[in-house]
C-alpha cells in the first residue's frame, strides 16, 4: 500500500505508534515533509473530520486520531525549522478572563491543528489585552474566545473593543463560543463569527480564512 495512504489510514484508526513508525519511514525514504503532512496526516484528519460531522464516529475517536497526528507532527516539526511549518493560518485561542474551563477551547485547538492551522493557545483566564497583543505580535488573523460563564462574557466584548480601538478590524477577525454564547449574542457583541461546537468552529474558521 502507498506509504502516505498507510499513514492516513493508521491515523484514522488512532494508532499513534504506527503513525510515528510510518512517518519516520517516509522521512527516511526522503519524502518531502510537506507532502507527508498534507497527503498523509492532514488527509487522514480530513477524513476523520468529515466522518465526525456526518455522525459516523464519536468525539473520543477524533481525539485518538488527533493524538496520532501529533505523533507524526512531532517527527516532522524539526524538519520544518529551516523554513516554516506549513500552516492554513494562525489562530490565537483562549478562555476569557475569570473563566477556568478549558475543555471546549482545547477541543477547538486540537481540531484546528488537525486541519493544519497554527495555534497560539493562551490557556485560560486570559486578559482581553493579551488576546489582542498576542494576535498582533504573532500575526494571527483569528482570535477564538471561549467561556462557560455568563459573568465572563463581557471579556469577549472588551477584546472586540480593543481590536476596533486599534483599527485592527480588517486584519484580525473574532470567533466566540461556549455554553452561554449564541449566534444572537455573537451578533450583539460584534463578533465576526460564532462556533456552535468545536467541529463547527473549525469549519467556520476555515471559511473565514478561505481554506
Amino acid at each position, binding site marked *: 500500500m502507498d506509504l502516505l495512504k498507510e499513514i492516513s489510514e493508521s491515523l484514522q484508526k488512532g494508532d499513534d505508534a504506527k503513525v510515528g513508525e510510518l512517518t519516520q519511514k517516509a522521512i527516511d525514504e526522503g519524502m518531502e515533509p510537506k507532502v507527508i503532512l498534507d497527503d498523509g496526516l492532514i488527509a487522514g484528519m480530513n477524513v476523520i473530520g468529515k466522518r465526525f460531522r456526518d455522525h459516523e464516529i464519536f*468525539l*473520543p475517536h477524533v481525539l485518538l486520531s488527533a493524538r496520532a497526528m501529533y505523533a507524526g507532527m512531532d517527527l516532522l516539526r524539526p524538519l520544518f525549522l529551516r523554513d516554516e511549518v506549513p500552516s492554513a493560518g494562525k489562530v490565537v485561542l483562549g478562555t476569557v478572563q475569570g473563566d477556568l474551563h478549558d*475543555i471546549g477551547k*482545547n477541543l477547538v485547538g486540537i481540531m484546528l491543528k488537525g486541519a493544519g492551522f497554527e495555534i497560539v493557545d493562551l490557556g485560560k483566564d486570559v486578559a482581553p489585552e493579551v488576546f489582542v497583543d498576542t494576535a498582533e505580535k504573532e500575526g494571527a488573523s483569528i482570535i477564538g474566545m471561549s467561556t462557560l460563564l455568563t*459573568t465572563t462574557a463581557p471579556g469577549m466584548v472588551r477584546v472586540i473593543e480593543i481590536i476596533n480601538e486599534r483599527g485592527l478590524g480588517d486584519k484580525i477577525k473574532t470567533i466566540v463560543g461556549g455554553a452561554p454564547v449564541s449566534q444572537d449574542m455573537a451578533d450583539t457583541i460584534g463578533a465576526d463569527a460564532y462556533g456552535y461546537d468545536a467541529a463547527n468552529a473549525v469549519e467556520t474558521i476555515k471559511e473565514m480564512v478561505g481554506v
Partner: protein
Amino acid sequence: MKRIIHFELEEVRAPREAVLDHQGIPEDAEVPHRILALYDDAASQFASLARPRGMIAEISEAEFREVFPGEGNNADDAVVANVFPKADHLALFAATMGGEVSEAIADHFDKNEFALGVMLDAVASMTADRTSEVIADHYHAQLIAEERATPAHHVLGYSPGYCGWHITGQRKLFAYLTPDKIGISLNASCLMNPLKSVSGVLVSGSIDVHVFKAGYSYCPQCRNATCLSRMERLMASERGSA
C-alpha cells in the same frame, strides 16, 4: 444546622451511559472497544483521585428570600422564584469532587492524551451532577427520619447559572453556606474552585412544586434542557407509585 457528608464513590458514580452520552455517544450506539477501554481507564483514575464530599444547610423561606435575588441579575421569570415559596422545606447545598481530578485532566492534555483527558473530564462532570441528586436524596431521607416529609415528597436541587437564576447568585449562597469547610471557594467570576463542584438549593415538596412548562424567556438559549428529562423522570416515578 450545617451538615458535611463524605460520599462513597459507588454512591455517586455516574453510569457509563451518562458519561458516554456527555460526549455525544447515544445509549443505543455500538461503542468501539477502544472507547470502552478509554472509559475504563478514566473511571479507574477518577476512583483513585476523587474525594467526593458535600454540605447541606437548611434555610427558612424568609432567609432564602434574601439569598435568592443575589446581586439583582436574575431573570424576571426565574423558575426558582416560583418554586421556593411553595416548598415545604429548603436547604442550601454544595458538593465537590476535589481538585486532584482537574489537575489530572490538565496533565493528560499536556501529554497529548486528549481522549483520556476528555473522558476523565466527562466522568468528573457527570459524577458531580449525580452528586447533586444524591445529596438531595440524603436531605429527603433526613426529612423523612425527622417526620417532616414522606416518601411521596420530592427533593430536587436548583442551581445558580440555570433557569434564570443568575450565576452571581453564588455569592450570597456561599456567604450563607460557607462551603470553604469542604474546600470549595468562589472566584471573582463566581466560578467554583475546584471546577468539578456543584451548588444550589434543595427544594422539598409535592410533585406540583417541581413541574413547570419550559416556556421561559431564557429557554430558547438553553442547550441541555435537563429540566425536561428530570420532570419526565419525576412524573414517571409518580405514575409508578400510584
